[in-house]
């Protein structure tokens, strides 16, 4: 590994961490799309900043662009407040317009400006180590490393200082306000941090990857835990993991590093989305199927309890009476047998004492409208789940 490769990986990892922290809160506050809007609409800010400073890495440019990001948020909220369109339409209207203004500004001044729109959208991490910070001739490492490093330190400092306030206002706005933490200040604070992070990172990794790095790790972490601290740590881990693996994937494929990191994030999210223990798709589908069978079982037991007549309790009769298909009735019947809820004697089904007790309790809960209690009861009675 050459020193340039190590530097690229360090920059990518720092960007991932810097994005994951505000990203977690954006996802929890249902404002993920705002980060997309900000990442597009900072373009005019960057262009204007570039006219003034002639340096893509100057702090003034970052501040100007971040200001455009905050203006976007304010504009979106203003349009939303007029009630003329819904919030999502407001977002969808504001950022393409600002982005278009930026594109036109670049196109009109193509001769004086060394800014490429592709570069803004994609960034080029591979070139980051070549733009070095030189102070009186001494090499202090790549400029973007310093920029993203300082942004990260500020973000972490803010996170540690205002963790309690952020947590409270994210989960209970009303309580936060009544305790005297202004939700407005926290809201705009978060927006400012997101804007600055987006601007600081776009040069290295491009606007779209910033969005991916903010949302994807946080979303994946949210599927795995419901604890805020764990979610923050997990999303940082996911971000760094895909940053480093993405770099090597790009190296192998000889393609854009930003695109490859995003692809890694996508794969990671896909895996979590499918296999997350309790909230992944497979787990959810399995649970839904289990619950369907168990509801059928309960219906079946209730039917048995209600009918003493042997005719009603004949195996063949059940098919038509409860109107289940053959396979379904067999699953339910097997489940009931395995759990010792019923006995079958000469094709006549009857409840065991245990089945009777279960059904009686279930009826009590249903009558008193406490259906949720049945879930807990299942743990007491069931040897095998549906």
């Amino acid at each position, binding site marked *: 590994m050459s020193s340039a490769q190590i530097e690229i990986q360090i920059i990518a990892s720092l960007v991932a961490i810097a994005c994951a922290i505000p990203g977690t809160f954006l996802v929890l506050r*249902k*404002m993920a799309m705002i980060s*997309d809007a900000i990442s597009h609409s900072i373009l005019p800010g960057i262009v204007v900043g570039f006219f003034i400073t002639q340096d893509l890495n100057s702090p003034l440019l970052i501040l100007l662009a971040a200001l455009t990001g905050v203006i976007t948020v304010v504009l979106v909220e203003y349009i939303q407040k007029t009630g003329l*369109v819904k919030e999502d*339409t407001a977002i*969808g209207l504001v950022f*393409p317009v600002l982005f278009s203004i930026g594109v036109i500004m670049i196109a009109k001044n193509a001769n004086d400006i060394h800014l490429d729109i592709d570069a803004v959208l994609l960034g080029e991490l591979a070139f980051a180590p070549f733009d070095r910070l030189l102070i009186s001739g001494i090499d202090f490492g790549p400029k973007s490393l310093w920029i993203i490093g300082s942004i990260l330190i500020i973000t972490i400092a803010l996170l540690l200082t205002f963790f309690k306030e952020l947590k409270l206002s994210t989960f209970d706005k009303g309580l936060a306000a009544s305790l005297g933490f202004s939700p407005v200040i926290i809201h705009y604070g978060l927006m400012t941090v997101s804007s600055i992070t987006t601007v600081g990172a776009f040069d290295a990794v491009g606007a779209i*990857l910033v969005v*991916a790095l903010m949302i994807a790790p946080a979303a994946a972490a949210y599927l795995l835990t419901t604890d805020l601290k764990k979610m923050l740590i997990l999303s940082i881990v996911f971000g760094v993991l895909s940053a480093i693996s993405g770099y090597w994937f790009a190296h192998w494929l000889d393609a854009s590093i930003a*695109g490859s990191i995003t692809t890694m994030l996508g794969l990671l999210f896909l895996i979590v989305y499918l296999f997350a223990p309790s909230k992944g798709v497979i787990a959810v589908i399995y649970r839904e199927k289990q619950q369907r069978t168990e509801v059928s079982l309960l219906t079946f037991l209730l039917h048995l309890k209600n009918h003493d007549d042997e005719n009603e309790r004949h195996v063949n009769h059940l098919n038509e009476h409860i109107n289940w298909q053959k396979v379904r009735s067999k699953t339910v019947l097997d489940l009931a047998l395995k759990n010792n809820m019923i006995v079958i004697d000469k094709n006549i089904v009857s409840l065991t004492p245990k089945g009777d007790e279960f059904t009686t309790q279930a009826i009590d809960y249903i009558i008193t409208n406490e259906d949720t209690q049945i879930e807990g009861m299942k743990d007491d009675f069931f040897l095998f789940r549906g």
Partner: protein
Amino acid sequence: MDIQEYFSLVFTDYTLRTITLGTAILGAVTGMLGSFAVLRKQSLLGDAISHAALPGIAISFLITGAKDSNTLLLGALVSGLIGTFWIRGIITKTHLKSDTALGLILSLFFGFGMLLLTFIQKQPNANQAGLDKYLFGQAATLVESDVWMMAIVTGICLFVLLLFWKEFKILLFDKDYAKTLGFNSKAIDILITSFIVLAIVLGLQTVGVVLMSAMLLAPAAAARQWTNSLAKMVFLAALFGAFSGVFGTAISASQNNLSTGPVIVIVAAVFVLISFVFSPSRGLLFKQIRFIKNRRDLELHKTLAFMYHIAETHENISHPHEIKILNNFHGFTKGTLKKLVEKNYVTLQGSTWCLTNEGFKSASNLYNQLTQQDE
């Protein structure tokens, strides 16, 4: 070339005519279908789909190796649809919210698409240049067959829209009712979403992945301000979209270095801005005017009620009182007093005022009238 020259050339010059026609048709069809996206609160879906279409373009190029725009757009359609249904899957099956799902699919698909594009660029194949025109669109690359394609798709959209008008409308405004009436709401939902995807894919070549969502939203958001009727809104949105296309093309053709996509978006945004401000029933300007007028009326009533309470305590209701006893707090200004005089509720004598019979009567009925109107 200035704008006048453009309009004289538009009927004779092949390229200009094709581009203008193309952007006009595109604007019309996106405006039409965008109305549904806006009303269904799926505005940002367009953004996500247009980004999600990018890997499809790259993959279909990798498979066929051809740069024929129809093949590439077919790939875009497939990957746009995959993105859309994955978004749905995330929203329905997990506890992640729609904004997270949209942002995820948008950025992940786009990043994957960019990876493929950069990978293609490094391939030893001379044919690869020009794929990046789908990022920002290049209306100049439109040829007659593309415009025909757009026209046909627009025709199909219009036909299906008219055929299933009733179903679309009911699904839009009352989904549960549609279900109870026995409409297959899932199928209608998929149909309309697929058409939105189709419209987006159609515009990728002209406006590009990044700005396509604005084409979908802006005409519809503008049209929404002028009417409360769905049919009128769809029609107006199509009209706004078509005009944005034509004006945008005209402006970008008359200047150097202006790509068509961003200009069309800005023209559409101007339509939105005008609609937001000047629409008679919802616009900000008339809303403010109505607000001020209501406040004036209220202050007038307040002054009148105050006068009434004073006059009540006297036997003669026309007993004169000093103007000085009225103050701002009672909603009194010189203007309101003048208006009361004009309405013949009050007469002025020097520095005193007295209530007329008419004024007394209408003041005593003031609250009765209000309650009657409420009923």
